[in-house]
């Protein structure tokens, strides 16, 4: 089908419909769900979505249901290989158990980044990072 459809958002995503997809958002959230629909802005409709968090060698899932994601917030959209998805060398643990560690990691990272930005600005002559401050 590659040669029949030009490389546009629609052309690239048409094969992904009704497949289980991984979506990473700009805020770092990782969602897995079945892609049901999209449009020219890559707004996405994800069904049976679960949010996954990772920490160390563990991961946890939390069911989130039906999502309509505004395309600009998407960093990555990838198909999940159903044959291989269970082969990951990570422990599946309870969401409530892992969540505090995950939040903690986010806080730590945020503080580190703030500190780094401060050093760069005050000592190294860099300008302040504009806007949202993420790398995207």
């Amino acid at each position: 089908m590659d040669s029949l459809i030009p490389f546009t958002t629609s052309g690239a995503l048409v094969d992904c419909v009704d497949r289980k997809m991984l979506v990473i958002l700009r805020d770092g959230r990782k969602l897995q769900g079945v892609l049901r629909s999209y449009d020219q802005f890559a707004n996405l409709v994800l069904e049976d979505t679960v949010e996954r968090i990772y920490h160390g060698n563990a991961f946890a899932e939390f069911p989130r249901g039906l999502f309509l994601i505004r395309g600009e917030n998407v960093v990555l959209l990838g198909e999940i290989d159903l044959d291989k998805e269970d082969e990951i060398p990570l422990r599946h643990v309870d969401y409530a158990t892992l969540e505090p560690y995950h939040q903690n990691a986010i806080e730590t990272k945020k503080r580190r980044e703030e500190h780094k930005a401060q050093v760069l600005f005050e000592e190294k002559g860099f300008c302040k990072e504009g806007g949202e401050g993420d790398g995207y």
Partner: protein
Amino acid sequence: MQCKYLPDVLCFLPSPRRDAVVALSHIVTMLPLSLLNAAQNKPMLVELKNGETFNGHLINCDNFMNITLKEVYQTNPDGDRFWKLKECYIRGSTIKYIRIPENLLDVVKDEQNRAREAGRSNSRGGHISGRGGRGAPVRGRGRGAPMRGGRGRGRGM
């Protein structure tokens, strides 16, 4: 990529092309914004890019994803402060994502199927009624976006 209502005319297309058309027509019937349109009066959770969330019932939306909600519970990004609002307007460009009731997708599909069946029985024999057939208006067109006046100039105030 299965579609129960494969218009017969598509059978004559080469298979890969046919798959593409079927998939596209499948999507077209419930584009993200059509789904949002169909979610009017349904409860939903809207998260903004800054992390604030708004829980409420959808009153209306337009093609920019601007929305109005009623009976809203607003939270700050940390989720530790709450506000209750009677009604609020959210500019589409500030939205990160919207969470919709799980069953809505089925409801919309059912509605479309019924509309399509109605369209079939209305049309005379042999006529292929895909989308755009008589008597089976695709949902989400015409009904939405009443907020835009006249010719849709000026997206601002």
